[in-house]
């Protein structure tokens, strides 16, 4: 069953076409990776799905409902949650309050009380391993901790579709492994229907994604099974300009 469907979605900034007629289907159960060089439009695509920007052309459906015109705050309750590539915590609030906002206004429903939201928040804070930072101001976290906070906030929203924009970037390989396993585990346990992950860290993509979409200059270049796509010469070329394949290298940004 199709969870999210993009139909020829286009977004322009002035003369620049950041996302160019991208079509994509994400099905229930999917774990999809989205890769592509810097500036290829990955984050913009997430911004279009989560409602930060409205597309200039094309349509977006969530389970048959046309959400193209729906403002961001109405998409969250339908089950779309995302993390920001550059973390955007509520800086003067504690870690706990940050995550609680996700629980309060996400897909749990309007009735969620503040106290309930706090206990939901605690659950996810523990899950991502920020338990001892619970009452710390978000401002005071390290860069990696802020990434984890982004993840916890998105999880607390009880999403059907979870969009993760470079959550493991900047982490050491050990942590990358841990976080990817964690995301896989949470996806099963919390019954998140689908997770889409934008990542330059190729091992993370290989470990996590069954399917990969490659973007280049706003366009969708290829889409297919992870290992097959990553072995393609064309894909390597957009990354390095050489024909060394990505699968052999590690971090796609080199």
């Amino acid at each position: 069953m199709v969870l999210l469907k993009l139909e020829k979605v286009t977004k322009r900034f002035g003369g620049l076409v950041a996302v160019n007629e991208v079509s994509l289907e994400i099905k229930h159960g999917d774990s999809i990776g989205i890769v592509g060089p810097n500036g290829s439009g990955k984050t913009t695509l997430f911004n279009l799905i989560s409602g930060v920007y409205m597309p200039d052309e094309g349509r977006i459906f969530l389970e048959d409902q046309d959400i193209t015109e729906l403002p961001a705050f109405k998409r969250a309750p339908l089950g779309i949650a995302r993390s920001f590539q550059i973390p955007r915590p509520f800086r003067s609030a504690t870690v706990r309050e940050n995550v609680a906002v996700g629980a309060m206004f996400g897909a749990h429903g309007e009735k969620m009380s503040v106290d309930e939201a706090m206990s939901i928040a605690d659950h996810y804070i523990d899950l991502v391993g920020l338990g001892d930072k619970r009452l710390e101001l978000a401002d005071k976290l390290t860069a990696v901790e802020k990434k984890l906070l982004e993840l916890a906030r998105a999880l607390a929203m009880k999403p059907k579709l979870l969009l993760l924009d470079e959550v493991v970037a900047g982490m050491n390989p050990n942590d990358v492994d841990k976080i990817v396993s964690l995301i896989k585990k949470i996806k099963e346990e919390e019954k998140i229907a689908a997770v889409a992950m934008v990542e330059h860290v190729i091992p993370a993509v290989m470990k996590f994604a069954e399917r990969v979409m490659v973007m280049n200059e706003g366009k969708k270049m290829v889409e297919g099974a992870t290992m097959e796509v990553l072995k393609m010469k064309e894909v390597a070329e957009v990354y390095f300009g050489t024909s060394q394949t990505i699968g052999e290298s590690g971090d796609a940004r080199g």
Partner: protein
Amino acid sequence: MKKYIQPLLPVLTLYIVLLGAGLSIPGLWQPIAFIMFYVVLGQALNMFLGMTGYVDFGYVAFLGLGAYGMALAFSLFTDDGLGSGIIVVGFLMAVIFSILLSMAVGAIALRLRGAYFAIATIGVSEGFKYLIEGARLWGGSEGIIISSQLRDSFGSEMANYLSTFASDILIFAIGILAAILTVYTLHTRAGYALMALREDEDAAKVMGVNVTKYKVMAFGMSAVFAGLIGASAWTLKLTYVFPEDVFNIIYTVEAIVIVMLGGAGTLAGPVVGGLIYGILRYYLATVLPGFQLLVVAPLLVLIVTVFPDGVVGYIKRKLKGSRFSKYVI
């Protein structure tokens, strides 16, 4: 319950001390009433500026409209034999006027982001002043004087009591109401929504916060309190309303300084800010009569550039995690 009472304690204690001092020490009532006006004004603006991080440069319009609401009640209904009920009608009109304007401005302007909103509000109070003068509404530039109606309704002794004492007591009452409402809001979903949108509007939206709704709510609440202040601190206290006075931008500036000085978005901030500012202003009025802004304006610049958290914001950060933190929000 405890989580509401604890942070209210310091604020209410201060109110009681001020009230007690004013009532028992001769000659202190007027200065304390003067300071209380600033404390409550700060609380009112804090509900919007502090909670949302949006600035309304036309805030004084709500004070002005509240003042007009009360004045109109007297000039329209004095002969209807409402007795002291006329004051209730006056407050009601003040509230309705403020709500109407806040909805009109809010529904349009609050869809706009920070700077654009601020730009839109620059015109609101000016626009309103010019509408009243230009269309000769409500007495045009001559304003409304209600001293004779006050005497007709209440007799001269009672009228005098109203403007020299009761109106000040009303300001205290409005302040207490504002404090309770602020604490309550901070602990509800709305409080968290406002925190989120103040910190990062895009992130808040993506997390499901209907930012326009909460901004309009905070704006309306803040406007109503400004209206109540205008009705009592101007119309009842001074017994006249002139557009030049009640739409004077100085009150907007002062309210902003109080909120920023004390700490935007906190409960105790505007109270502390109002107290400091009120005392400062009281002395400035004697040292530099007519030139308070000469001191206040650079003070504002100084606060926002080097001390943006304000006094209470600073203390709050220091107390984070200690057992006193529950008392300072």
